[in-house]
């Protein structure tokens, strides 16, 4: 998607293009909160970015395969683990941060967050979990700063990230069972919902991520 390469005055955010979903929407939303998003298919471009956003709509196995084919896996590890560059995974992008996925077979993930990606139980509820649901914040100093105790966000998913360490969760949501709606662990952030599709509350989350980046970079 070379047609989208606007550089504004804000923070340089690399959006990883691995052919999995709504990159344009993510770029539009980041721009709306003052960042200078850059959609990239090239791993070497991650090193000069201030922050990395890993978006994604789709299946875990395809996502990992595409990241590997484009040479992103090693570069993401270098940037996120060694250089501690802020990363925000959105939806599938958050799931890929985990150690393992189980959609269409067990597949190794990026491994930044200890834990597995598991299918949502359909005990009395419809799966996929689609629509606006309220996220209860367990941390309010990061992504949810200024949003009170809970807000509605837009979800579209059938799998959730189940972190080995529950304290990594910064927000939880209930659909059938309680699940982790977001994680915050140092420079690693992820939301199961789509902030870029969650109207003004979503934009606030993205703005807070940018702010968290400027304090970590």
């Amino acid at each position, binding site marked *: 998607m070379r047609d989208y390469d606007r550089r504004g005055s804000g923070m340089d955010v690399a959006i990883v293009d691995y052919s999995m979903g709504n*990159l344009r929407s993510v770029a*539009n939303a980041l721009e709306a909160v003052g960042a200078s998003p850059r959609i990239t298919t090239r791993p070497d471009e991650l090193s000069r970015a201030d922050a990395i956003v890993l978006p994604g709509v789709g*299946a875990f196995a395809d996502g990992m395969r595409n990241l590997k084919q484009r040479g992103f896996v090693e570069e993401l590890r270098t940037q996120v683990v060694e250089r501690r560059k802020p990363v925000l995974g959105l939806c599938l992008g958050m799931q890929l941060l985990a150690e393992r996925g189980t959609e269409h077979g067990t597949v190794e993930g990026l491994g930044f967050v200890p834990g597995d990606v598991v299918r949502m139980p359909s005990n009395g509820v*419809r799966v996929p979990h*689609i*629509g606006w649901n309220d996220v209860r914040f367990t941390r309010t100093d990061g992504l949810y700063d200024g949003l009170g105790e809970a807000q509605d966000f837009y979800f579209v998913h*059938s799998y959730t990230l189940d972190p080995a360490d529950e304290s990594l969760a910064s927000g939880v949501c209930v659909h059938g069972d309680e699940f982790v709606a977001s994680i915050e662990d140092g420079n690693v952030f992820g939301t199961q919902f789509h902030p870029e599709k969650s*109207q003004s509350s979503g934009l606030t989350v993205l703005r807070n991520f940018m702010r968290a980046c400027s304090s970590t970079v």
Partner: protein
Amino acid sequence: MLKHRLIPVLLLQNGLLVRSELFRIHQIIGNPIHEVQRFNEWNVDELIYLDITRDDTYDLRRADHRIQGLGDPLDIIEAVSRTCFMPLTWGGRIRSVDDMRERFRRGADKITINTGAVADPGLITAGAHTFGSQAIVVAIDVLRHVDGRAEVFVDGGTTATGLDTAEWARMAEEHGAGEIFLQSIDRDGTGRGYDRELIAAVADAVTVPVIACGGVGAFEHYAAGIAAGASAVAAANIWHFKEMSDRAGKRALARAGVPVRL
């Protein structure tokens, strides 16, 4: 708690925004690009665009129009997604995984397939494997016959398939559909309210969310769709001919005890 969604459906024909009646009569009501700002001002839960252009038909009612249509209807996705931060679903004339990819690339979050899915249910599976089930909505157009049979129609409501609606919905889910968008042909544009029996039959047949559409003439009709089993309620015409359609629709749902995002 998961909220029930209220969704405007915007119908496009040859690049123009139209209102529809019984899937046969289409009146132009505007240029979608000019209307984008208005849609974005609606603080809606989601937007569904359906491109109902049919290459092999010529609508006589359209012969006198002077409004220039869009060269490429997909430009609308880009125009809308630039400033609107809500989910966008796009349907119409999608026959391959490449067609889907193109729409996602332009800013769609979900796509709907209808005729293409009936012709080859494998298309649902291929889409679900590539983009995830949650991004693949199977749209089903249904005509209720006088004997009560609910038959699936394709090609914009012109071709009978012999398929029973609940049966086909179940098959679509098995093939990987993440949502069912259920449209009633015989209620379309009539304002008589939803076909509740149809919604109930399909909602019982599948575990994925069902979006009900077709027949809404008053905001009070929405709650009946939810009561019948729909996860989300959609409508087209009412959004263009009533003021404050979003607020008024949401309030009507809330009054009926339906949890909504206000």
